[in-house]
């Protein structure tokens, strides 16, 4: 599974993307965020406050309870500030 990070999440994690294979117990987007946060200090710093982290599955916005099964690409990012 390809995991992408943007803006300050990318800066805190230290990489723009990584290829990871989460265990079967990781079912939802929120599960994945918790699993990533437990990897190391850099990931933990990125996911300190889950309320300000948004996610997309295969380039579509999703809620934290969305199941990740079958997704090829998961992205995590702060609230958007375009326009």
């Amino acid at each position, binding site marked *: 599974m390809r995991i992408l990070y943007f803006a300050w999440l990318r800066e805190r994690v230290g990489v723009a993307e990584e290829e990871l294979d989460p265990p079967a117990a990781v079912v939802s987007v929120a599960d994945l965020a918790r699993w990533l946060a437990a990897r190391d200090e850099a990931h933990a710093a990125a996911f300190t406050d889950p309320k300000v982290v948004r996610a997309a599955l295969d380039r579509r916005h999703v809620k934290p309870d969305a199941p990740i099964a079958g997704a090829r690409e998961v992205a995590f990012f702060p609230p*958007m*500030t375009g326009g």
Partner: protein
Amino acid sequence: MAGDIFEVRVQAEPFDAPAEAARLSSGRTDVGALVTFTGLCRADAGEAPLTALVLEHYPGMAEEEITRHLEEARRRWPLQGAVIIHRFGRIVPGAPIVMVATASAHRAAAFAAAEFLMDWLKTGAPFWKKEERGAAATGGWVAAKSSDDDAAARWNDPAKAGER
């Protein structure tokens, strides 16, 4: 009808908003209203004035998300054309960041669709602004504003959306 232009572009290069908008009514006589909004990088005062905004985006999703909102706008209003351009990269004060142009037979649809598209661009399109301030080019990420969320959310309420 043939000749309608519906276009979404995400690019680093500057754009010519009047020229882009003019394409929507060029060579046809049925367009009665052409609305153009251009968002510019705004300078501000302070001890470390803004020298630039650096826009990061999610390639692929940015185009797809804007296109999904354009399709929604076309379902809601009888549009005859639209051009939406959003830039990424380093943008200095005074330079354009985003434009939305909408064409319709009458002004109500053109105004409403342009406002709907801009409201959603601010909260739903995957772009993030980082400020560059002062000689040392310091500065942080721009925080999302709840007023932008409110502006986008009102389009979910059919009663309120209908008033506009």
